[in-house]
């Protein structure tokens, strides 16, 4: 993977490789992989052997960048590229000057090995504090403690900003930040004050403002907002814009039965489907929708009739029907969201 990291930085010199290293080890910890797998990943990322040793019981392992075990007796851990904590030492065998990502690889390897071996606690590491703060399954007292460690004072209001690892930051706020595992993959999360000015970055989702105790909710709304992004047209979405709707969407189980969304998906197969439905949801009348969609109102009326047939209700029948269409449209956008799958960094850059 060192070679892949090299390609990444050649394709996009501004790409944050450190975050990718963090996300990589996060997934390994979530997957509960063994010591060899952790050392293989570190060696592969570094492009040189990685190893670990412990005292009680005495055990040593060295692994090549190809994941093969090295039989030879271990060399002494190289100074400057080893880390010891809780009776466990890890190292990478770099000959020559350290590479840019060595420190972060070593840090994540040490942390992952300690967790795998049941030594130390996750929260020994300050970066992990944000994962605790954003996890509603963590007792609120522990979240408060972790928030204090991050400098988030009780009583203050903040928002979580969610971004993919490959987001482009024209401006990067100074904030508590980390990579947090989610069902949609690792997400880059930052906590900014509630009145932070708009951030020049994309794609990003900005969560609702909450007190420190409710930051898990801000995070969940931020992830929904992020998934509603559709760059380049919509590089950033603010959860506030959708008010209470975003909370509904955030609480929707991923496997929820949604017949309105299934029916709407049939409409969206047609090339005119998405722009037409978008216009219908935004407009107050057929004429206004026609103007937004850039088509004649008779064309729009025709499409509206077809949409009504497919959905089984007329979206302009009454307020409830409009709401049904609006919610189905947002849920459809989430279901078909591609914003987390757009990691080609050089794509939009010269």
């Amino acid at each position, binding site marked *: *993977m060192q*070679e*892949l*990291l090299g*390609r*990444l930085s050649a*394709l*996009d010199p501004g*790409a944050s490789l450190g975050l*990718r*290293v963090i*996300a*990589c*080890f*996060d*997934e*390994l910890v*979530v*997957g*509960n*992989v063994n010591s*060899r*797998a952790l050392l*293989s*990943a570190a*060696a*592969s*990322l570094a492009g040189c052997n990685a190893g670990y040793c412990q005292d009680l019981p005495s055990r040593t392992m060295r692994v090549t*960048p*190809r*994941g*093969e075990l090295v039989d030879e007796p271990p060399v002494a851990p190289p100074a400057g590229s080893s880390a010891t904590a809780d009776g466990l030492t890890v190292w990478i065998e770099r000959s020559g000057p350290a590479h840019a990502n060595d420190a972060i690889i070593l840090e994540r390897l040490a942390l992952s090995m300690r967790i795998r071996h049941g030594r130390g606690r996750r929260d020994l590491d300050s970066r992990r504090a944000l994962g605790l703060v954003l996890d509603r399954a963590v007792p609120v007292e522990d979240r408060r403690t972790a928030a204090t460690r991050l400098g988030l004072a009780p009583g203050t209001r903040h928002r979580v900003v969610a971004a993919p*690892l*490959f987001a482009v930051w024209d401006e990067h706020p100074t904030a508590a930040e980390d990579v947090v595992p989610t069902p949609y*993959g*690792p997400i880059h999360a930052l906590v900014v004050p509630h009145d932070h000015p708009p951030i020049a970055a994309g794609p990003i989702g900005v969560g609702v403002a909450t007190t420190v105790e409710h930051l898990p909710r801000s995070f969940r709304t931020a992830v929904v907002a992020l998934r509603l992004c559709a760059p380049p047209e919509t590089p950033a979405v603010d959860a506030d814009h959708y008010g209470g709707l975003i909370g509904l969407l955030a609480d929707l189980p*991923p*496997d929820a039965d949604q017949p309105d969304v*299934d029916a709407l998906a049939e409409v969206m197969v047609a090339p005119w489907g998405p722009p037409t439905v978008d216009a219908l949801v935004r407009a107050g009348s057929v004429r206004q929708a026609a103007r937004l969609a850039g088509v004649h109102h008779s064309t729009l009326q025709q499409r509206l009739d077809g949409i009504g047939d497919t959905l089984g209700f007329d979206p302009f029948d009454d307020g409830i029907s409009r709401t049904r269409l609006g919610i189905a449209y947002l849920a459809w956008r989430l*279901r078909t969201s*591609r914003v987390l*799958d*757009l*990691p*080609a*960094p*050089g*794509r939009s850059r010269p």
Partner: protein
Amino acid sequence: MSVTRPGFDPELKAGLAVVGGVFPPTITPDLIGFMRRSYASPPIEETLRAKAIERSDHTIAGHGGDAVAVSVLRPAGLSDARPGVLFVHSGGLMFGDRFSGADLVLAWVETLGAVLVTVEYRLAPEHPDPYPREDCYAALEWVAANAQRLGVRRDRLLVAGASSGGGLAAGMALAARDRGGPALCGQVLDYPMLDDRGVTASTGQFDGVGVWDRVSNETGWTALLGDTRGGPDVSPYAAPARALDLGGLPPAFIDVGAAEIFRDEAIAYAGRIWAAGGDAELHVWSGGFHAFDIFAPHTGLARGMVRARDAWVEKVLAD
């Protein structure tokens, strides 16, 4: 309906955090240029450094007599006739070069003493069907015709390829059978791209996740076949799943991930070879995304895949 699908192996899932930046899950035509840069192979001199392998480059007559480059990688110091491998590279028919993924097959040169020939077949969409497959077939005939000069045993010639290269290798085996071409002792089809129709269950399961999803596959096949993709007039040498008869083929080794779109077409191809009385060995790797041995060779799953493949090749090729 939300899609259910088998999950990725944890080590591979971790690898995706890095792989995703180089190889996005969904490749649309506007990304072909980016992919040609991101998937270009590292300099071959670096790959071969400190290996006892001699390389020579040749120009052969490809489809229509046009010049096509091939490289011959020979074990240094062996002058007797050696087993030969014609290798076809990966890259979705649209990108990659003849050294893409070559590091994984160099072991056959180093440890088995095989001569590896790799062909710079022309890429779609600039060169649609039949250019890629006929460039490959021309290389196969060139190896057979020049076997003596190249020091290759004509009775021990193998075709091998990964992904799009796996599909092209399978197509070569079909064409060699039908045209009375060079005899082959085996075909190694790594997660091969066999079917332009995109109708399998696994194709529908991987959309926007992993490596090479349904849309990427459509992009690749459309680049090759244009409007004829999925229609009645696609050649089985381009899309081997289209072949009506899979009898009389050389022994096949097929490996594929369980968490990739090609899972079901690879399984079906092996099944049809067996049904026709043929010889096939099939490995389906649980939790594997497409080409995981190329992107994450350090993982336990990839080491297992390479070990199984190398053992089969040793059985077929070794002295």
